[in-house]
């Protein structure tokens, strides 16, 4: 949900980071920093590298992704992640949950906000 200045709520982002990572990995196998740049290219520039790498570890621990090391020109081997069968199932489940949440919120968000009372609480 973009705010007026284009920034995103960090708590919201944290909640949907797994979904975003699973979705990106469903498109193609990828490594940590590449996933960060892909998220940034999609406009999620507030996502920090430091939140993506542990999130990948969590997905791997939950067996939603598998990983392999690939030698790179920079010296250190890259760790590529790809979705597992459980990962595809999890992606489908989370996507459905997300769509259900959006549908549930839509009527609330589509109604105009009532005029603010004069003596509104701060």
């Amino acid at each position, binding site marked *: 949900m973009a705010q007026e200045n284009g920034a995103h709520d960090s708590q919201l982002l944290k909640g949907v980071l797994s979904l975003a990572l699973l979705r990106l990995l469903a498109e193609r196998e990828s490594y940590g920093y590449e996933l960060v740049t892909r998220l940034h290219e999609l406009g999620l520039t507030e996502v920090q*590298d430091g939140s993506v790498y542990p999130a990948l570890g969590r997905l791997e621990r939950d067996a939603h992704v598998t990983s392999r090391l690939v030698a790179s020109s920079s*010296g250190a081997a890259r760790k590529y992640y790809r979705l597992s069968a459980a990962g595809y199932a999890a992606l489908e489940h989370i996507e459905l949950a997300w769509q259900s949440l959006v549908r549930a919120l839509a009527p609330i968000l589509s109604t105009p906000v009532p005029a603010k009372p004069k003596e509104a609480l701060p």
Partner: protein
Amino acid sequence: MNQGALTKKDRARIEIAVRTVDWHLDGRVPRARRRQILNELRSNLIEAAEQVGSQQAVRQLGDLKALANSYLELYRGRFDIRAGSFWAFITYMAIQVLGLALFIAFRAGVAAGGAHGASYSFEFWPGFGPFAGTVSASGNTFEVLIGSPAHILFVLVAFMIGSSYRTVFARRRT
């Protein structure tokens, strides 16, 4: 912006960041897992530094302690060796402080008793410790116990409890 090859300064900056995270994980995450985490982190940092510069690459990681804590949530081992060592040290120091206090009290007692020309000793649980001491009547020479079977036992118990209580509490919470 492609910054290209990294300088020694860039590599040092990356290594400092990696070592900072490592410092928080040391003794808490199993060694093999820790090595995997650090290798991946280093690889990603090098990749990022080649694109945006090492300073920005490290900055993009955010708070390194928070990053380490995220890894700890995921991979914390059964024993926290660092916490165990800390509590073992605290226990040893507590025994020594208590022993010193006992010794000072004993020496004051010897002096108050008007003892002459001999050395006086006290010992709790002979041969086991942890408290024992000898003081001359003049108070010029003294000995206190710095190690005993009791010291070892207390320190080991403190280490075991200190290194595993978090795991026990975590298991209770779930």
